[in-house]
């Protein structure tokens, strides 16, 4: 039928002309890529690597500027129609019809794909069950939470069984439970229906479940192979270190990550810190073994030891990327922390955390019996917690758990139906405006003025926070430098790459040096290196005494938090430090496993 490969690209090039200038941007620069029939292939790489462009070309939405691209045995550029009939594509932002209900959206796509009535009646319940949308069947798509929309988009793309399924970051904003289910479904489809799947993702654990992984960067294939082969690149260079007593793991992690000459990557993991050291001269200078170097480095940064750890795909990926960047000797960009900031933050890290810990921390957010109802639906039910100054507080929960509702109430965007809410010592019911001067807010989706440039956005938000004149100018200069945005200060905000947008949002929220920073899924949809840089900044801010309240669907990011709260169906399931929560979930595993177990247990408890 289609031969051994269902997608075969040779020397594929794509160039975009920038409007109103003679500049051209090379999106794909001679890509060789093949997807074997019946295989699950992952595309990974930083923002702007060309993943979406490639997918769109496979669908025939973009014509190649060079090279060849065969899809399902035909040249897609010349005769797109036969192939398109057999492709299922889920774009990054799946355009659901928000006025239509879940079921109506699914029916529409069933009809468009020519699924017969009987077939549809068989398939739809299956899809609804798989995406856990069955109970929302009659809800308009516009009223679903972000993650549920994502799942509905996938269900629509799967309305009939295609030969080739293309998924562009399908799990952005999807909670770990749903993500697991989604991947079970995908693997099932590949096995049962001999489907070929190409998926782009920012989750390396997802890529690890694929048959092949292509690492793209800057429009070129950096590396490819089975996950094991890529993993091998970091084999023997991964270590775990336990932080010295009383020292938060994220401080050790930040110190390690700052030493980019030696350390390729560092992340907190289960109370310890996992780090990868570079191969080559720096690591083994003076005839030392890699292990010795790692231990020395770990101790320097506040760790107790350095135990070799098995490599994961993420380690391999980061190693490949860092080495590439080093080889190109590129200017610092979103993958690296600017030197100035790095230096500035190191000084904060020299604080003695014990003193701050022993003293009772000042409470800056106090929530008692918080309730929010929408009609008869209870979105947030009797929630109580406090957050102390300088704490990093994580709000976790499945899609639709009430996280965003809680968040909006904390920021004063939504009045509470009951309970008390004190933020920065001010009751939000009576003095919303006064509380707002003390808080910074970064929304889930980019919500700055896309038509203004970077500097104008900063000037605007600084101005409305009452900064002006020299103070404002100096603060802007400071933040531009801190976030590495100087070179782009006159770029239009809407055209910035994802990582930069996220940095600008942070910069705008920090202009007035808020005591409390609210971040709603700040890392959804940005790439791994940008996420590292992001958390590095959070660590620095917390060290300065800024309180950070954050939601995320990356469970490993919960490891950066001092305490986390797990919410489901509006109720608090767990509250405590990541270690405590993991311990209470039983059988110490990854944060993700703990999370899934806690939510499942609670749901089963409710069901019986």
């Amino acid at each position, binding site marked *: 039928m289609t031969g051994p490969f269902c997608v075969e690209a040779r020397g594929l090039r794509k160039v975009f002309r920038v409007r109103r200038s003679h500049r051209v941007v090379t999106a794909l620069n001679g890509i060789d890529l093949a997807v074997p029939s019946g295989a699950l292939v992952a595309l990974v790489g930083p923002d702007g690597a060309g993943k979406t462009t490639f997918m769109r070309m496979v669908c025939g939405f973009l014509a190649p500027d060079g090279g060849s691209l065969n899809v399902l045995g035909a040249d897609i550029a010349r005769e797109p*129609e036969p192939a*398109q009939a057999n492709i299922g594509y889920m774009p990054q932002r799946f355009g659901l019809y928000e*006025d239509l209900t879940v079921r109506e959206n699914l029916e529409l796509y069933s*009809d468009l794909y020519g699924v017969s009535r009987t077939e549809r009646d068989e398939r739809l319940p299956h899809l609804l069950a798989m995406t856990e949308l069955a109970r929302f069947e009659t809800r308009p798509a516009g009223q679903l939470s972000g993650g549920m929309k994502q799942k509905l*988009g996938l269900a629509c793309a799967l309305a009939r069984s295609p030969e080739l399924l293309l998924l562009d970051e399908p799990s952005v904003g999807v909670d770990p439970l749903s993500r697991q289910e989604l991947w079970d479904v995908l693997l099932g489809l590949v096995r049962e229906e001999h489907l070929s799947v190409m998926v782009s993702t920012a989750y390396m654990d997802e890529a690890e479940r694929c048959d092949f992984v292509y690492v793209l960067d800057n429009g070129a294939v950096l590396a490819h192979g089975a996950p094991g082969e890529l993993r091998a690149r970091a084999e023997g260079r991964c270590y775990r270190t336990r932080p010295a007593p009383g020292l938060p793991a994220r401080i050790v992690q930040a110190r390690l990550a700052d030493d980019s000459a030696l350390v390729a990557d560092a992340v907190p993991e289960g109370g310890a810190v996992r780090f990868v050291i570079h191969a080559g001269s720096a690591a083994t200078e003076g005839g030392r073994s890699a292990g010795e170097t790692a231990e020395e480095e770990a101790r320097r940064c506040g760790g107790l030891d350095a135990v070799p750890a098995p490599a994961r795909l993420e380690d391999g990926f980061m190693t490949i990327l860092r080495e590439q960047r080093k080889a190109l000797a590129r200017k610092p960009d979103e993958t690296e922390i600017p030197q100035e900031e790095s230096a500035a933050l190191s000084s904060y890290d020299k604080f003695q955390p014990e003193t701050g810990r022993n003293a009772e921390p000042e409470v800056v957010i106090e929530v008692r019996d918080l309730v929010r109802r929408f009609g008869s639906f209870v979105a947030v039910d009797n929630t109580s917690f406090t957050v102390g100054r300088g704490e990093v507080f994580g709000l976790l929960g499945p899609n639709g758990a009430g996280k965003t509702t809680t968040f909006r109430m904390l920021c004063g965007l939504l009045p509470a139906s009951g309970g008390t809410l004190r933020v920065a010592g001010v009751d939000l019911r009576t003095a919303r405006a006064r509380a707002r001067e003390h808080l910074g807010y970064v929304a889930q989706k980019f919500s700055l003025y896309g038509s203004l440039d970077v500097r104008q956005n900063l000037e605007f938000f600084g101005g409305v926070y009452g900064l002006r004149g020299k103070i404002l100018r100096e603060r802007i200069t400071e933040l531009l430098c801190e976030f590495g945005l100087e070179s782009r200060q006159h770029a239009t905000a809407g055209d910035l790459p994802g990582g930069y947008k996220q940095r600008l949002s942070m910069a705008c929220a920090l202009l007035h040096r808020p005591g409390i920073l609210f971040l709603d899924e700040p890392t959804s949809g940005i790439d791994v290196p940008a996420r590292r840089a992001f958390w590095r900044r959070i660590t620095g801010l917390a060290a300065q005494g800024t309180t950070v309240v954050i939601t995320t669907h990356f469970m490993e990011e919960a490891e950066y938090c001092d305490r986390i709260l797990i919410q489901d169906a509006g109720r608090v399931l767990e509250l405590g430090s990541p270690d405590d929560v993991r311990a209470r979930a039983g059988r110490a595993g990854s944060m993700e496993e703990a999370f899934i177990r806690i939510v499942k247990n609670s749901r089963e408890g409710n069901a019986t």
Partner: protein
Amino acid sequence: MISPVRIRALVRKEIRQILRDGSSLLIGLLLPAVLIFIFGYGISLDLKEVPIAIVMEDSSPMARDALAGFRGTGYFSPRQADSMHEAEELMRRREVDAILRIRNDFSANLAAGSAPVQLVVHGIDSTSASLAQSYAAAALGEWASRLEDRGSVPVREHSGSVYIEQRIWFNAANSSTWYLVPGLIVIIITIVGAFLTSLVMAREWERGTLEALFASPVRPLEVLLAKIIPYFGIGMAGLGLCLLAARFLFSLPFEGSFRLLLVSSMLYLLAALGMGLLISSLTRSQFLAGQITILVSFLPAVLLSGFLFDLRNVPPAVRVIGHLLPSTYYMELLKTLLLAGDNLPLAARNCGVLALDAVLFFLGALRATRKRLG
């Protein structure tokens, strides 16, 4: 090639959206009703009873008679002013729109053969003013002939004079409602066809729903057809409302064939739909599509189609622009069919132009809606 199943699915989706959002129906059905009401009862370009101040400086019976003649016409509602000064004050306050002054030497002049009567009009409402002026001239003329007939003034031997006999065709009632109604129909079809459709289609581009649609086997032609079908329905419903009102509220004569009327309306609606789809596919933004559609379809339909202002009476450049737009041809044909009667050569030509426009716009939209992004 074209799949009826897919088109049906898309049309069903479109209808559901229309029903849920409501704003499309608002514009398709409520707006025509409001406009019918306003056009029918609110505005009229016909002048009724101009308030006029009369300054009688001559109090002879002859002058009084003149005033009576003025009252009798029904065009004026006169009021007496004691002096020119007072009358001017009244006009300044816009309590009257004109002043008629009969000077104190009126009787003497009249006896001598010819007497001037002074009329001052307020020129701001220029149309009303010039109509008032011609009404006044007519009233004076009638009065003069009455005087002559009665022998009150000497009928002099003269070399014969010309008088005007007027006949108005196609609008026996000489009511502006009759010519406003065709304009109303054109406006409604333009708004539903071009404006609404361009917004709805631009929204699909803006929200990324088209990218998801394009990933399915659906063809651009099907997407466009599925947009056209429901909005065609709304447009026809609006047209139906207007025609009912025209027939039963405003008693328009419907001189021409109803079938021709329907065919030409459908062609114009299709042309408008095509234009809306073309604009939205080119701009892909609701704000721009809305603005551009207003500029190239709605305003010309009001201004340049001959709705309010006669195209035969404007500078050639403006006339040429008017004749580039489908609304002009539809307006001309519609007025003829409603008020004048069948005129096959005109109908054939204008329907031809409309059909050509519809096809061109539609092909343009199809070209712009290829499954290509970026």
